[in-house]
C-alpha cells in the first residue's frame, strides 16, 4: 500500500449528487492500490470535497481491446496502453465539503449538496485532511481506531455520542464485545455519563477471554477500579472467577410487574391472554400479586376468583407455570431484603459505573426479566429526578447510558412499543437516559427504534436483511453496503451517524495487550495511586 501523503489519483469525469462521481485514474495510480472504503479529497474550483471510494472498475476506450486483447507480455505495449487506451476508474461518493472562503473554513466541513466540477483533481486524503474532518484526540474526543489503511487516529466526540441512543451491530465473533469495551472505557473517561451494563456473558466487569480463548482480556473493573462497581446476581460464580463484587442483587416477587411478563411472553411460552390475566391479578392483589397467584390452590375460592376476574382456567395455569419458572431462579426471593435499585442509583449518582453480572444465569429469561425490571425502575427514578431538577433548579442527575445485549429480545416490533427500552430509545435523552444497544440480528429490532439510534457502529454483517436494517435511511446506502460487506471479519467496523461527520470504516484500536491497557489508562486523569495499582496489575 502506498504511504505517500495525498498522492494524486486522477480527475473527475462525470457524476451526480445522488450517485457520486466517476474518477478516471492517472496512469501513475495503480488500480490495485485502490481500496473500497478509502478516503479521497477532490479539489473543486471553489470548494474541497471529501469522499469515500465505493467502487473500482476497469475501462477501455475501444471495445476492440477486450475482443482482441494486446500482447501483455510486451512491456512496450503494456506501458503505452496503460492509462491511455486501458484505464481504471474509481467511484467516489462525496460526503463533506469545505468552501474556500474564510467563513466556511471556520464553519468546518458541511454535508455535500453539489458535485465537483469536471476534471477536478482527486487525491488520496492525507492524515492532515482526516484530522480536519474527524478532529484530534482531546478532552472530549476519544481515539477508537484508525480509518482503513491510514495512520490517522479516528476520534469520536463522546459527549455528543451519549446524547442519543447508539447501536453496535455485527455477526457473532466479529469483535462487538471488544468494540463495546473500548467505547465503555471512552465514555467512562471522556463523557460525563455513567454506564449501567447488563453483562449477560460476564465480559465487561472482570476479565473475559479473547475469541481464541487463550488470552485473558482485562475488563473495566480491573482497569478503573475506582470508577466501576460490579453487581452480581450469582455471588458463587463471581467468587469462583475471582471477581471482587460490590453488591449482590436479589429481587423480590413484589418488584416484578405485569409489564415484565410482556417481554417474557415468548421465552416463558405463555399466552397473550395469560399476560392480560397478570394485569388483572396485579390490580386485584396489589404488589404481592405473584406470591398470591402462586399461593392460591385448587380450591373453590380459586374458581370463584377466576370467574369473577373472567380468566379462563387454562390461561391461569399458563400464567402460573410461567411464574413458577421465574420463581425457580435463585436470585428471586419472596421479599428482597435490600433494594437493588436504590443501591444501584446510589453508585450511579456518585458517578460510578455499574456492571451487572449474570453469572450462571445466562438464559434469556433471567436477562430479560432483570434488565427490564431494573431499567424500568431506574428510568422512573431518573424521570423523577429530572423533573425535580427542572422545577427546583438543582443539578441534573448524571446522564445514564444503559448497555443491553441481545437487544432484539427487548426491542423487537412486538414488544418495543410496550417495553421500557423502546420508550428509552424513542424518548432519547429527555430524561438523561440513553441506550447502547448490542445485537447480532439488527433486523430483529423494531424499525422505529433503529431509526432513533444516533450513531451506529457495525462490524461485518452478511445477512441481507440485517445490512438493510442497519443502513436504512443513510444517504449513499448502496455504496455503503459494498463497504460494509467487505469489512474484515475481525477488528474492522463501519461507523456512521450523529457522532461522526461522515461514515467511516475503521480498524478498531487494539485492546487486550499490556501496551493497549497503558494507552487507555494513560488517557485518564487517574490519580497517582491508581496508576501505581495498575502498574502492579501488569506485573
Amino acid at each position, binding site marked *: 500500500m502506498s504511504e505517500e501523503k495525498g498522492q494524486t489519483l486522477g480527475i473527475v469525469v462525470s457524476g451526480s449528487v445522488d450517485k457520486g462521481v466517476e474518477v478516471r485514474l492517472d*496512469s501513475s495510480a495503480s488500480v490495485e492500490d485502490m481500496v473500497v472504503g478509502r478516503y479521497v479529497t477532490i479539489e473543486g474550483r471553489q470548494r474541497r470535497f471529501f469522499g469515500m471510494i465505493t467502487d473500482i472498475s476497469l475501462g477501455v476506450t475501444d471495445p476492440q481491446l477486450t475482443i*482482441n486483447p494486446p500482447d501483455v507480455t*510486451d512491456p512496450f*505495449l503494456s506501458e503505452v496502453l496503460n492509462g*491511455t487506451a486501458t484505464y481504471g476508474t474509481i467511484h467516489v461518493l462525496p460526503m463533506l465539503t469545505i468552501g474556500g472562503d474564510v467563513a466556511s473554513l471556520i464553519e468546518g466541513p458541511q454535508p455535500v449538496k453539489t458535485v465537483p466540477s469536471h476534471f477536478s483533481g482527486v487525491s488520496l486524503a492525507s492524515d492532515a485532511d482526516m484530522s480536519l474532518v474527524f478532529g484530534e484526540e482531546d478532552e472530549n474526543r476519544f481515539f477508537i481506531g484508525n480509518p482503513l489503511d491510514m495512520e490517522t487516529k479516528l476520534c469520536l466526540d463522546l459527549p455528543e455520542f451519549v446524547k442519543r441512543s447508539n447501536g453496535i451491530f455485527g455477526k457473532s465473533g466479529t469483535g462487538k464485545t471488544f468494540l463495546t469495551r473500548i467505547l465503555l472505557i471512552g465514555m467512562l473517561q471522556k463523557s460525563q455519563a455513567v454506564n449501567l451494563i447488563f453483562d449477560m456473558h460476564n465480559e465487561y466487569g472482570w476479565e473475559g477471554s479473547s475469541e481464541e480463548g487463550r488470552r485473558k482480556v482485562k475488563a473495566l473493573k480491573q482497569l478503573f477500579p475506582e470508577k466501576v462497581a460490579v453487581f452480581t446476581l450469582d455471588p458463587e460464580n463471581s467468587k469462583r472467577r475471582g471477581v471482587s463484587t460490590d453488591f449482590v442483587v436479589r429481587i423480590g416477587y413484589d418488584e416484578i410487574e405485569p409489564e415484565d411478563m410482556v417481554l417474557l411472553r415468548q421465552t416463558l411460552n405463555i399466552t397473550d391472554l395469560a399476560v392480560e390475566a397478570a394485569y388483572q391479578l396485579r390490580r386485584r392483589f396489589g404488589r404481592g400479586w405473584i406470591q398470591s397467584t402462586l399461593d392460591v390452590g385448587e380450591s373453590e375460592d380459586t374458581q370463584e376468583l377466576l370467574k369473577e376476574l373472567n380468566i379462563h382456567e387454562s390461561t391461569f395455569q399458563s400464567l402460573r407455570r410461567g411464574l413458577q419458572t421465574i420463581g425457580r431462579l435463585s436470585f428471586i426471593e419472596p421479599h428482597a431484603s435490600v433494594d437493588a435499585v436504590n443501591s444501584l442509583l446510589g453508585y450511579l449518582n456518585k458517578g460510578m459505573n455499574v456492571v451487572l453480572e449474570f453469572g450462571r444465569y445466562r438464559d434469556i429469561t433471567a436477562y430479560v426479566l432483570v434488565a427490564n425490571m431494573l431499567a424500568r425502575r431506574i428510568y422512573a427514578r431518573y424521570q423523577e429526578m429530572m423533573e425535580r431538577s427542572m422545577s427546583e433548579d438543582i443539578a441534573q442527575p448524571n446522564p445514564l447510558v444503559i448497555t443491553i445485549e441481545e437487544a432484539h429480545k427487548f426491542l423487537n416490533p412486538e414488544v418495543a412499543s410496550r417495553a421500557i427500552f423502546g420508550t428509552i430509545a424513542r424518548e432519547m435523552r429527555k430524561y438523561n437516559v440513553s441506550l447502547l444497544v448490542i445485537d447480532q440480528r439488527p433486523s430483529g429490532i423494531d424499525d422505529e427504534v433503529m431509526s432513533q439510534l444516533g450513531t451506529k457502529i457495525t462490524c461485518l454483517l452478511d445477512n441481507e436483511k440485517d445490512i438493510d436494517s442497519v443502513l436504512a435511511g443513510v444517504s449513499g446506502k448502496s455504496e455503503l453496503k459494498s463497504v460494509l460487506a467487505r469489512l474484515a471479519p475481525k477488528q474492522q467496523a463501519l461507523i456512521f451517524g450523529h457522532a461522526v461527520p461522515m461514515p467511516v470504516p475503521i480498524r478498531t484500536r487494539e485492546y487486550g495487550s499490556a501496551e493497549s491497557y497503558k494507552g487507555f489508562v494513560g488517557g485518564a486523569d487517574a490519580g497517582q495511586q491508581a496508576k501505581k495499582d495498575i502498574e502492579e496489575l501488569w506485573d
Partner: protein
Amino acid sequence: MTEPSDRVGEVIEASTTEFVAECYELYGLPPLGSLVSVGDAADKTFGIVYHATTASVEPGRRPIARGKDEVSEEGIYKSSPQLEKLLRSEFSALVVGHGNSEAIHQFLPPKPARIHGFVYLCPSEQVKTFSRSFDFLNLLITTSLPVSVEELVAATLRQMGQAHEDKQAFLKAAGRELATLLSSDYSRLRAILGRIAPE
C-alpha cells in the same frame, strides 16, 4: 543550423498541405518519414517525406533495359553516363508545421512553399526540437495518402527516434499520444505500435 550539405533538392510543386521536390542527385532521396524543411530561417515550412519516385524525365519515354552485357548494375550507369540526366528522383512531403528561429508551430502555414525553394533534410538537433511536441501526429493520422498512414506514422517516429538519446522513452511517449488520438480505433493503433515497438 542547416548546412549546405543537408540540401537534398528543390520544390517543383507546392500546395497548402504538401510539396513535391526534385533531388539534385539521382537516388539522393531523404528516407521515408524524415523531417525536411523549406524556406529561410525567418519562415520555414516543415514537411514529412511520405512518398518518393524515380522515373524518366520525359513522362512518355520509359527507360529500357540495358544490362544484358554488363557484369554489374553499376556498370550500366558507367557505360551510359547520360542516364544520370535522363532519370530523376522526386519526393513528396506532407506539410506538418512551420516556424522561424523563435518558435515552431505544428499546424499548417498561411502560405504554401515557394517553387524552387531549397529543401533541406533537418539535422538531428532540429528534429529533436520539432519532436518535443506531438501535435503533428494529428495532422498525419487525419490525412489520406497513397501510402498507408500507419506505415508513414511508424516510419516518422522511427526516424525521429534516432535523433533522441533515449529512443525508448521517446517512442513510449509518442505511443501514449497515439493511444489518446486513436482512442476509439484500436486496430489502427495496434498497426502503428507493432511497427515502432523496439526489438
